[in-house]
């Protein structure tokens, strides 16, 4: 058992080291793409903390990403130190999640999902129309150079932290409380689980990790528009990635993000916006063929279990 654990830890360490030294050898294009993949991973993983563990499908998860990115960009443009701006972005996302959790968590199931997407669109239109501060639909830029490598490292660090945190939560008492809420809220409350508190806590944690990657994304991209960060495809992407990989498994959203990220990148060159069609198709196919995601499919499970 401990030998197996040791081996797992060794493999993971080697993988992390390889990922960490990659910027020394790879072209800027590949590196930018990998950073994007990592960003997707973090957003999908932090979405799945809420969606997969507590069962609340938050279609507006991108709002935390967008808010932290925009806060960061606006503050940098006002000449504030980048670290301070980044931290403010995270804090802003967390406070915003606290603020919207009160109305949102009075709703359940599909109503919650619809209301959450409304929050995302509300933020998008708000930022589009605050033209003097945010640059409106034209987007906003930050004056950084040579950002690709550092952006990649930051994204890698955040991704590792996020995945580990997901893993820990899923196995903790807190994770058991979330699982009970996912199974049956009405019953869970009769066994001492404070529903509202538990749900807010996981939403805030999800907002925190997404809030962390927002400024990093802004920093390495140096240019964003409201529709890039808040847009519908960005709001739906984490949900579909998580569902495709296996919602509720710590490695599910990571896997889904890699697959859909690669498909999107390949299609983007040849048929722009065709990836949206793929998202829709993926969602339909998951529903029909793989309700638990790829990693829960029987033949995949068999391989994983044989290795154990």
């Amino acid at each position, binding site marked *: 058992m401990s030998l197996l654990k040791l081996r797992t830890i060794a493999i993971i360490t080697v993988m992390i080291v390889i990922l960490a030294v990659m910027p020394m050898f790879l072209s800027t294009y590949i590196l930018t793409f990998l950073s994007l993949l990592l960003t997707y991973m973090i957003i999908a993983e932090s979405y799945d903390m809420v969606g997969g563990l507590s069962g609340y499908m938050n279609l507006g998860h991108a709002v935390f990403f967008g808010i932290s990115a925009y806060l960061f960009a606006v503050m940098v443009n006002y000449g504030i130190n980048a670290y301070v701006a980044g931290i403010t972005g995270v804090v802003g996302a967390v406070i915003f999640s606290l603020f919207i959790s009160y109305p949102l968590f009075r709703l359940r199931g599909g109503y919650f999902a619809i209301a959450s997407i409304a929050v995302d669109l509300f933020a998008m239109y708000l930022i589009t129309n605050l033209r003097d501060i945010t640059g409106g639909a034209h987007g906003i830029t930050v004056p950084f150079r040579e950002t690709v490598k550092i952006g990649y490292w930051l994204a890698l660090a955040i991704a590792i932290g996020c995945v580990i945190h997901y893993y820990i939560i899923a196995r903790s008492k807190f994770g058991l409380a979330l699982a009970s809420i996912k199974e049956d809220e009405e019953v869970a409350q*009769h066994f001492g689980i404070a529903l509202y508190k538990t749900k807010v806590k996981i939403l805030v944690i999800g907002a925190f990790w997404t809030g962390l990657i927002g400024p990093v994304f802004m920093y390495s991209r140096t240019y964003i528009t409201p529709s890039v960060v808040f847009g519908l495809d960005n709001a739906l992407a984490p949900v579909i990635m998580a569902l495709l990989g296996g919602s509720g498994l710590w490695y599910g959203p990571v896997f889904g993000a890699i697959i859909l990220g690669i498909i999107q990148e390949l299609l983007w060159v040849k048929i722009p916006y065709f990836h949206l069609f793929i998202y829709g198709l993926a969602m339909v196919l998951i529903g029909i063929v793989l309700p638990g995601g790829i990693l829960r499919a029987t033949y995949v499970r068999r391989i994983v279990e044989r290795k154990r």
Partner: protein
Amino acid sequence: MKILECEHLTKRFGGLVAVDDVSFYINEGEILGLIGPNGSGKTTLFNLITGTYHGSPMNGTIKFYGREISREKPHNICKMGISRTFQLIKPFLNKTALQNVLVGIYFGRRDKVSEDAALPEAQNILDFVGLEKDKHNEIVANLPIIDRKRVEIARALGTKPKLLLLDEPMSGMNVQEITQFSDLICQIRDSKITVFMIEHVMRAIMDLSDRVIVLNYGKKIAEGHPKEITSNKKVVEAYLGEAEW
């Protein structure tokens, strides 16, 4: 000593008065039975006590150890020491039997339980309710109904309740299973947990209960020793209809 005292409880759903001015008490250490025809408000009464309708209006007072609890949230009521099972049993189907009990142990108590202490305790509780050892780590969805009912009771016991509300624990059971569960309920009472149970299986409730309350159309129509209840004219009428001759 009275563990629970309810006075003038009334609960309306629109025009329907589900529980109508019901007053009763439960003595510490007894088994109190609750019977009545379908739709007479038994489960509603349970829901009132455990705070299911928290936030929606009701009349009357519920006192647990002398403390008013009718405004408390369900999770607080659970932590105070009132736990329950559901009529249509609702264990967490995608979790193992052990995890179900652990939910009760971790969250349903006022004092925090460490993970090392919780696991053996959960196993003890599952043994106590009679679930075989090899089923402890089985996903509940794979267990037969009778074992799910055991898990349902075990989860409630995990919260270390002082008062346990059982909502028709024996419905749909055969004679042998009823005997097993009757023994289990006696053992629960012997471990110093007061039991308040709804049951339609008359043999069981008449054997087990120290006292019985009868509801009909939301009103309490009788209360007393099981023997008095069975010969009570009102009760017989409620179940069988009025004699017309």
